[in-house]
């Protein structure tokens, strides 16, 4: 992974009385696929617009290659954007949409033709040049928007929920394609989404945001396996969050029993939150488990069954490929590696 390309330093931004971003500190490296992930209204799009140049921060600095760019307008930044609803020019055909930026740079006809056809090939739209925007499907419009941005050879591509309007199957395909494109062109992608699966699939780095603040920055594995707080644990994937007590390093108690774990550094007898992922909980015969519970609900999800297990006043969500009848007594076990301990947060 390359060196720091973009840096946001202590950014604050409000619209009227509404504080949208507070204390944002973030750096983005060269050739990185970084995703800003969070629920709507968390400030992820505003962060993207600060980098694109469509808004400027109230306080703090945006640095590009070490240079402060707060006041540089969008048309003088080597950054291009794929807009949420594509924002393709309806009065131009596919070729002219893609050539828009090149024509402004006043490149020669041959070069424009050459670069447009190469980029159309990259997004798998060879031969679509003369087509009208209205005649394209959503997925094709999406590709035109990407081509229109990439053809300018920006150092950074900003993508604002670009797959939001596509159906599930197309989304999945485009996720893989986008990742491939990023590898092929070798530039930084900054991707905004509220879809955690999308973020985990594509990113090198995920930035989880909520309420205008960064909650956690890390690789998809880090974010999933070692969430910093309740928000991250609940937003990324499904999780059981149980109140427990850290007895000492590598030993935590919850549901009335002590478990060996791998976390430490909390101190002794400290209240903590314990995160158990539904797929990490093992079910067995009642005698074989560390805890005992009763199945209260079963839902078939395709690859697995999702079951609710009542255990000591907690309803644990458990995923398993083997179905247990509702009302059945089961044993519950969790390995030390599968237990994730977080500092206890004040009840919300």
């Amino acid at each position, binding site marked *: 992974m390359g060196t720091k390309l973009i840096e946001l330093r202590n950014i604050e931004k409000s619209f009227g009385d509404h504080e949208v971003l507070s204390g944002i500190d973030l750096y983005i490296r060269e050739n990185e696929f970084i995703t800003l992930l969070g629920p709507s209204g968390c400030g992820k799009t505003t962060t993207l617009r600060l980098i694109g*140049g469509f808004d400027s921060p109230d306080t703090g600095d945006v640095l590009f290659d070490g240079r402060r760019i707060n006041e540089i307008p969008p048309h003088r930044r080597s950054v291009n954007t794929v*807009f949420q609803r594509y924002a*393709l020019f309806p009065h131009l055909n596919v070729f002219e949409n893609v050539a828009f930026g090149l024509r402004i740079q006043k490149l020669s006809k041959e070069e424009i033709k050459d670069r447009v056809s190469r980029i159309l090939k990259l997004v798998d739209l060879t031969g679509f040049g003369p087509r009208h925007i209205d005649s394209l499907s959503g997925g094709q419009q999406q590709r035109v928007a990407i081509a229109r941005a990439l053809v300018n050879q920006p150092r950074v591509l900003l993508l604002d929920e670009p797959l939001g309007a596509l159906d599930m199957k197309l989304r999945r395909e485009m996720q893989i394609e986008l990742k491939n494109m990023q590898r092929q062109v070798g530039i930084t992608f900054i991707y905004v989404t509220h879809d955690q699966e999308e973020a985990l699939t594509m990113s090198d780095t995920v930035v989880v945001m909520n309420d205008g603040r960064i909650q956690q920055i890390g690789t998809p594995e880090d974010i999933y396996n070692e969430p910093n707080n309740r928000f991250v644990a609940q937003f990324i994937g499904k999780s059981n969050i149980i109140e427990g007590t850290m007895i000492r390093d590598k030993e935590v108690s919850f549901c009335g029993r002590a478990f060996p774990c791998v976390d430490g550094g909390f101190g002794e007898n400290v209240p903590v939150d314990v995160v158990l992922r539904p797929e990490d909980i093992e079910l067995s015969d009642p005698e074989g488990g560390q805890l005992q519970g009763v199945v209260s609900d079963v839902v078939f999800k395709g690859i697995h069954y999702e079951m609710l297990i009542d255990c000591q006043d907690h309803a644990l969500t458990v995923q398993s490929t083997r179905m247990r009848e509702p009302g059945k007594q089961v044993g519950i076990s969790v390995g030390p590696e599968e237990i994730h301990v977080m500092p206890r947060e004040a009840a919300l």
Partner: protein
Amino acid sequence: MKKTSWLAGPYLIWMALFIVIPLLMILVYAVIQDGTVSLAAFLKFMQPVYLKVLGRSLWLALLATAICLVMGYPAAMFIAGREKAVRNLLLMLFLVPMWMNFLLRTYAWMTLLGNNGLINRFLGFLGLPAMDLMYNDVAVVLGMVYNFLPFMVLPIYTVLHRMDRSLIEAARDLGANSAGVFAKVTLPLSMPGIASGITMVFMPAVSTFVISRLLGGGQYMLIGNLVEQQFLVQGDWNFGSAISMILIVVILVSMGIMSRFEKGEQGGVTPW
């Protein structure tokens, strides 16, 4: 749809009685003279004296339309760029004069421009010689611009107001400066509004007879006055009808040209 289509009945009858039949009658009067089919009325029009009237009508209407466009487009852009409260106020100011009687508005210009009008009295007050402001082309064009300017501003405003802001951001993102954004995105996308505006100013301007009568004077002839004269003074209904048909063709042709620009999803939206 089918079940309620009878509700359009009253209008269809209205249209037949007061639009289709009168048009057919004009056509009949234009081509039938003394009981035989004849193009004499049309041939009569092909004289320099009448062609000059047509030419002048077209020229003045085009001039008024061009002035309305040059004044109206920036105005529409200005209004569309304001906040909602300011926008509504400005639109209101544009519309308030339209609530006043058309004749009254035109008479008002007579009291401004006349030999003893406000402007000349003000010039006299300053010790300057009086000017001939009335009864010329300038006064007629002024009257047209004044009366028809809102018809230019409103459709352009509507299109600009509805334009997707993200298109402008996209153009800036792709390297266009303000002038580039206007030339490559805003202007082309507002073509439907411009086309509606041009049609809605040009049509009444080319066929007006009140403005030319009041501000151009009794001897002043535009094609509208010519038609009026045939029916009311000369009593030559055949010739009057023929001129009307020619005017209809002129307007149809101009609408045909304009409608080529009105296509596209933004649509030429006319507020009336």
